[in-house]
C-alpha cells in the first residue's frame, strides 16, 4: 500500500532534514539502561499495560478475552432470560383463576400484623366448634358467600397462607394453656380480616379445618408444644424467621 504521506517528495525532504544530525551518543546510555533492567529482571517481571500493547490493529480489534467475555455474557443473558421467562410463565396457569392478585397480599400482610387477635378469635372459635356449638359466622362471612367464592377461587398461595395463619392462631390458643399471658391479654379482639376471609372462603367457621386440610392440625400441633412460650413469635414466624431464613439462603448465590 503506497503511503503518499511518507513517499511524497515533501515527506522525504522533511524526514531527511530532521534526521540529519542524529547523534549516536545516546546509544550507550540506552544500552546501559537495557542491561540494568534486564539484569534486575524487569524485562520478565512487569505486566503489560494497555498502553504497552501494540499488537496489530486486526488482532487488537478482536482480542480473545473480550470475545470470550462477550460470548459468555450472551450465553448468560439468554440462559437467565429463559429462566426469567419460564418463571414468569409459571404462575399464569397456577394463578390463572379469576382471583384478583390484590387479594392475597392484604391477607399475607395483615395476618401476621394482627397476630394476637386471630389467636383469641380462633381459639374461641375452635372451642366452640369442638363443643359442637353452632356459631354464627362472624360479620362479613355469610353463607351465601360460599357458592360465590368457592374454595378454588382463593389462589393457592393465599389459601395456604390463611390456613397457616389459622393453624398458628390455633396453636397459640393451645399454647395459652401453658401460661403465656401475652396472647390472653389480647383475647376478645375482633377477628382479623385474614381470618374473616378464611372463614368466608371456607364457607363458615366450622368448615375452616376441612377447608385447610386434615393433616393441618395433627402435623402442626406437636410443633406448637415444644415452644409454648412465644405465641407472638410464632404468629410472626410464619412470615418471619422461617421465610426470612429462606430468603437469606436464597439471596446467597
Amino acid at each position, binding site marked *: 500500500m503506497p503511503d503518499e504521506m511518507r513517499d511524497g*517528495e515533501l515527506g522525504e525532504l522533511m524526514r531527511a532534514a530532521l534526521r540529519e544530525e542524529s547523534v549516536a551518543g545516546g*546509544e550507550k546510555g540506552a544500552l546501559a539502561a537495557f542491561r540494568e533492567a534486564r539484569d534486575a529482571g524487569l524485562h520478565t517481571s512487569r505486566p503489560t*499495560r494497555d498502553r504497552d500493547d501494540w499488537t496489530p490493529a486486526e488482532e487488537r480489534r478482536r482480542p480473545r478475552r473480550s470475545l470470550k467475555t462477550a460470548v459468555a455474557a450472551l450465553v448468560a443473558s439468554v440462559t437467565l432470560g429463559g429462566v426469567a421467562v419460564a418463571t414468569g410463565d409459571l404462575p399464569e396457569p397456577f394463578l390463572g383463576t379469576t382471583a384478583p392478585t390484590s387479594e392475597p397480599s392484604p391477607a399475607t400482610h395483615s395476618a401476621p400484623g394482627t397476630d394476637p387477635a386471630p389467636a383469641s378469635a380462633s381459639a374461641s372459635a375452635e372451642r366452640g366448634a369442638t363443643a359442637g356449638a353452632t356459631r354464627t359466622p362472624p360479620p362479613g362471612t355469610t353463607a351465601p358467600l360460599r357458592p360465590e367464592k368457592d374454595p378454588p377461587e382463593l389462589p393457592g398461595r393465599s389459601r395456604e397462607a390463611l390456613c397457616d395463619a389459622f393453624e398458628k392462631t390455633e396453636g397459640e390458643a393451645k399454647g395459652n394453656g401453658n401460661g403465656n399471658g401475652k396472647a390472653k391479654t389480647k383475647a376478645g379482639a375482633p377477628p382479623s380480616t385474614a381470618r374473616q376471609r378464611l372463614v368466608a372462603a371456607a364457607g363458615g367457621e366450622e368448615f375452616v379445618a376441612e377447608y385447610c386440610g386434615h393433616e393441618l392440625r395433627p402435623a402442626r400441633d406437636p410443633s406448637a408444644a415444644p415452644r409454648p412460650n412465644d405465641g407472638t413469635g410464632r404468629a410472626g414466624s410464619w412470615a418471619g424467621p422461617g421465610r426470612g431464613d429462606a430468603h437469606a439462603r436464597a439471596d446467597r448465590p
Partner: protein
Amino acid sequence: MGEGTGHAPARAHDPEHDEPSGPEHDEPSGSEPAALPGPEREDPSGPEWDVRLAEAVERARRGDEGAFAEAYRIVHPGLLGYLRGIVGEDAEDVASDAWLEIARDLGRFRGDGAGFRGWTATIARHRALDHLRRVRARPRPSRFEQDMLELPAAGDAAGEALDALSTETALALIAGLPRDQAEAVLLRVVVGLDGPSAARVLGKRPGAVRSAAHRGLRRLAKQLKGRGR
C-alpha cells in the same frame, strides 16, 4: 510477531519506487549489533524495516543486548526527528530520557515492528511534554519560541534548494504549523507511523489525525512551492 525470515513485508511499496531494499537475510542472533547497510542507514523508518525491527525487539526482550542496539538504531533517528519538531535542540536530552524508559519497560511491550515505533513514540512524546512543562515553568522562553524567533522565515526557507532542506529550515516550517498539524506530520512522515498508530500516540481519532496531517503537509507544500520550483 515476525515471520522468521527477514524478507520484506507483503505490503512493500510499488516495486518501481526507488526504495531501500529492506532486510535481506536472517540476522545473526549474536549479541553483536548488526551493522546497518550503507544506504539504508539513512532512513530505516519505512515499513520495509518493520519485520527486521520486530525480530530485533523480540530478541532484545529475551535479553539480547545487540538486538536492542539494532532496534535503537532503527528507531532512534525517527524519534529524534519527531522530538526536534517538538522541543527543538533539547531533543537529544529528551530522547535519552525516553530511551531509559524504553529500555526499562521493554518487557512490557507487545506488538510488531510498527507497534514498537508507536510505543516508543508515545514514550518519547510523554517525555517531551514533561520537558515542555518544565521549560515553561522557567522564566525563559521555550525552545519552541526561540526557534520561531531565530530561524529564517518560511519565505526564505522556500528559497532554498528543495533537496537540501536544512534541519533549521525544516524545524522552522514545522514550527509554523499549528501544534496538532505539526505533530501529525512528524509522526506520519518522520517517525513513519501509519495513520491509526499516529492517532493512538496522540490520543485522538484517526480521522482527526489524518486530516491534520493532510492540512499540515499541504501548508508546508504551499510554503515551499510558492517560490521554490
